[in-house]
């Protein structure tokens, strides 16, 4: 019978062997590049599949760490002044889905401009302040504590914007879009069948236009929020918890055009909120 001490040795040896075998596979191709940049660099990342994480720091330097396992993809970086480009190239037409994967960890100055294009995987951006564009097929986009003008175009990827500031345009087909605690004064979302959730303050003078073909549009407002509301649907339904007064700005409501509609003012009507759905459900809920 093996003592506790004796069985530990082969187990630990096996574990060490596993680590040695696994380690090269996990980072079969790893590259790390450092780029000195000036103020507000522009970083463009183009990928096919994988995880893209962008974080910020206060140094005037961009660091790109790329990992991929396959010999059928290649990572290419380029600097032209304040512009950095990161591209994943496919080296073969015969490539398995798993071989497409390339993952990036990118660290950028806080004030940077980003352009990210990928088909699938995940994009996570944290604490970057600058204009940004995202173009995906099914890759999910997560924006956390970012600020600037953001444009997101996705076919089936979801979009999560947590504690974001500035303005955003989102266009999706089936991807869901969520805003949590936003501080944004201009939000435009259009999706064919995705759900839209806006859980945050409507800023004074803000404009919020949320539209889908079907699916759920839900906004959660605070008692102190002040906005003009227009909610319309051709074949859907509207559920409302807001105490609405007739529009104090004298706007005429084209309610005859819609099967169900709701127009009016909450408090002084500082912000403008337009919710429209062809056949989905619109919920205007009071935040707890």
């Amino acid at each position, binding site marked *: 019978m093996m003592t506790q001490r004796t069985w530990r040795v082969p187990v630990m040896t096996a574990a060490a062997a596993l680590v040695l075998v696994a380690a090269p596979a996990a980072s079969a191709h790893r590259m790390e590049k450092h780029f000195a940049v000036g103020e507000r660099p522009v970083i463009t990342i183009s990928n096919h599949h994988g995880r893209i994480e962008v974080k910020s720091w206060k140094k005037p330097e961009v660091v790109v760490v790329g990992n991929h396992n396959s010999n059928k993809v290649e990572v290419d970086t380029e600097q032209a002044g304040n512009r950095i480009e990161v591209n994943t190239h496919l080296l073969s037409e015969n490539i398995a889905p798993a071989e497409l994967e390339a993952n990036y960890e990118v660290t950028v100055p806080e004030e940077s401009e980003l352009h990210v294009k990928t088909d*699938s995987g995940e994009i996570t951006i944290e604490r970057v302040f600058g204009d940004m564009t995202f173009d995906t097929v099914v890759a999910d986009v997560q924006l956390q504590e970012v600020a600037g003008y953001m444009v997101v175009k996705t076919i089936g990827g979801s979009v999560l914007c947590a504690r974001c500031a500035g303005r955003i345009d989102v266009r999706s087909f089936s991807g869901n879009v969520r805003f949590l605690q936003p501080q944004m004064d201009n939000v435009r979302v259009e999706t064919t069948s995705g759900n839209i959730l806006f859980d945050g303050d409507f800023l004074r003078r803000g404009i919020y236009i949320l539209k889908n073909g079907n699916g759920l549009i839900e906004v959660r407002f605070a008692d102190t929020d002040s906005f003009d509301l227009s909610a319309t649907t051709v074949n859907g339904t509207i559920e409302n918890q807001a105490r609405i007064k007739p529009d104090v700005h004298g706007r005429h409501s084209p309610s005859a055009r819609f099967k169900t509609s709701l127009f009016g003012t909450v408090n002084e009507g500082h912000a403008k909120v337009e919710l429209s759905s062809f056949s989905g459900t619109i919920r205007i809920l009071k935040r707890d």
Partner: protein
Amino acid sequence: MQCHELEQILEQGPAPLPADAATHVSACARCRGLFADLKAIETVAREFPGEVAPPEHIWVSLRAQLEEEGLIHAPVAAGRGVGWLSALFGVLPRPALAAAYLACLVVGAILLSVPSSIRENPASQANQMQPAPAALTAQLNTVESSALSGIHEHNPVVAASLRDNLALVDKFIALCEKNLREDPRNEAAREYLYGAYQQKADLLAMMMDRDASGD
């Protein structure tokens, strides 16, 4: 000759191809497809009735999209007097040209589905949907087939999503059309239908863009 050199030649608009370009087209399947698409679009464009005038909001929307994509930089409204599609044909720089043409076709399809009597008098009894011309529908189907056949299968999740979302938009278009057939005066449904066709154009353009850039 390389593909990008051919694209530069095609930028110049409809004209007979130089010999080396023709040789390239015959040897390169992708360029052959692009060239065939452009020729077919040109043919359809010539069949457009001269009096077609897009409603202002459609024109503004199309122009904004073309500007956003960097396809045009100068106001194109000046070209309206000579025919809006012809004007575009002359001023568009080449990148993603197929997408722009596609948007034009889609907008054209919508316009042609609205009789002029409705444009002039929305309360007209003739307020009914008209089918788009067969040539236009055929061309749109060709573009759609081309976009679908260009989908790269090496990422099945992406390929499935592209197909599923195209089906989704088609379903939405059918739903809007059904509403409009049931209530031809439903302007809200008509606006959603405009939007749905624009969505389809956007989606096909994204698919074609990915086909072109997939390396």
